[in-house]
């Protein structure tokens, strides 16, 4: 299957020259389609110092269908669902936005960028988005607290 070749290639690229703050490895060495991603919270964001575990799931039709990104680590963020799925809403991963020429490195960098700059207008957690817009200090406070609670090891 052509998709495996491309996935392997992208994985190799990502492991060799990982984007800043992002570490990638396969969840299971025999399965190319599920990746474990460890993402450091961007500096100057309330997620700083946290390490967030994400799962990147690739459809078998990849790259013709978009991957999905979900947070395993609980995170207080307008664009990440606050449930056990931790789904992240990325515009470029929507079916109508996805392009096969998008690379997973770009997807992950975009996801990390979203940590630095949430997009409350595309929120999946409306309440957090409201707070982000209306009471930023409080949002930061909670996000920082959650980061300390869930995303900082040791």
């Amino acid at each position, binding site marked *: 299957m*052509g998709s495996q*070749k*491309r996935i392997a*290639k*992208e994985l190799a690229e990502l492991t060799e020259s990982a984007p800043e703050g992002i570490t990638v490895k396969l969840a299971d060495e025999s399965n190319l389609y599920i990746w474990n991603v460890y993402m450091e919270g961007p500096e100057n964001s309330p997620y700083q110092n946290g390490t967030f575990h994400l799962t990147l799931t690739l459809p078998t039709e990849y*790259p*013709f269908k978009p991957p999905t990104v979900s947070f395993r680590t609980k995170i207080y963020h307008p664009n990440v669902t606050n449930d056990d799925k931790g789904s992240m809403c990325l515009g470029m991963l*929507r*079916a*109508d*936005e996805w*392009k*096969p*020429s998008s*690379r997973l490195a770009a997807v992950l960098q975009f996801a990390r960028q979203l940590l630095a700059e949430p997009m409350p207008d595309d929120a999946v957690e409306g309440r957090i988005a409201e707070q982000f817009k209306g009471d930023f200090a409080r949002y930061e406070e909670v996000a920082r607290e959650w980061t300390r609670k869930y995303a900082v090891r040791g």
Partner: protein
Amino acid sequence: MADAAGDRVMCHACGGVWPRSEHGLICPQCQSDFTEIVEIPPDPDEEPPSISDRPDSASSPRSAGSPRNPWADHNPWAAPQGDQDRNEGDQPWDSGSGFRHRTYRSPDGRFTFSTTTYTHGFGGQSGQSPSTRSTSNLDPMMMVQNMDNIFRGLTSNYQQRERSASVSSSGQASSQPRGQGQRLGSFEFNIETGNSATSSQDGGLHPRDADGPQPINNPLRTLSDILELFRADLGANAQAAGTGGARVVTGTNPLAMLSSLLSFDRLGDAVYSQEELDRVISQLIDQTANRGAPPPAPASAIRSLPKKKVDTEMLGHEGRAECSICMDAVELGAEVTVLPCKHWFHYNCIELWLNQHNTCPHCRRGIDSPQTQGTSDNPVVIADSPEPVSRRTSSAEANPGRSSQPPPGAWPEQSPSSWSSRSFSSWSAAQDRNNGQDQRRDSRGEGSSTGSGFTGWVRNRLGGGGSSS
């Protein structure tokens, strides 16, 4: 309760209605003060309902007596009395002379109906079915129960619409769901009436005895005609639904149909149960998920894409390039498929993508040439001879097929000055500064080759041509 002249108050919280004189503005049911005074004009022609105008023999055709509400006795499922749950929240309200307000809440609370029925023109006579009469002459709870039966029957029927079993009772009402339309199915609803004794005033809309045996082959003409329209409309919708277009819920939902039949106008566009709402929402989600995702390209269009050997120019400055789908390096001299936007890919790679979406994976331009662009939703009509002058006039409105859709190959030869700047900019916002004809010719090769660009242009021309004059 024949207080037809007095103001009534309706509770928006529970739907109850009561005369203002009795309970004031606070809902006696739920103590809500979210109420509204409903003015009911009294109808002087009304007579109090009477019963026993009908012969008891159920087999005899109904005489001039008929219930005010043609469906008052409707009980096609005729469930044994007492085995239906009744909701203590039911608030049937019968004003007697010509006005009825009823609130019905299903036992499980999934839907609530309120109806206000004005009845006149039926002669003010009421026929009660024998079973109804045997228990209560004008028992509102009986009405409610009958309604309950109807709704239960319809809901279960609707849920099992894949089956083609028809639910009918006494040969009067038969609901035949068909598997038409993938998501919603469709619904046929045929009502036949038993007799036609009192058709003089209502043009054929007359009540029927739900419980008694009646002639079957006497369709209720007016209603049938209406329903026929419904069905035709559904058929058309089902075809259009292939593209995932939004379907109007009304008419596919038997409850909605029933409510429209019973003139539950107050509810307007509404769904009647949580399930129904969930279904609509999930349908909308499905549509949103697929909306904007371009449709697959036809196989012929994929095959006819030009192929080319990779030359040094295509490899770019670095002298190497890759197919952005498989990310494999492409060597000099390898054969690749070139899209109209000049992006190129391995044929096998781009074929897989184009089988799903007819756009370039890189820049999203459509691969269709403008000559073949056009869908059933947005057909392209090629005019014989475009007349640029007429585009500036209102004739674009009167004759849009001809004047607003010039053949793509011909229009650049027209005098550019005859194009209003507005229409030009609507053709392509990106090109609106390129007023030189040469530049425009160049840009045409790009712009007109894009499916969405061209259709967008046609759409803009269609939409804006008339108003720009």
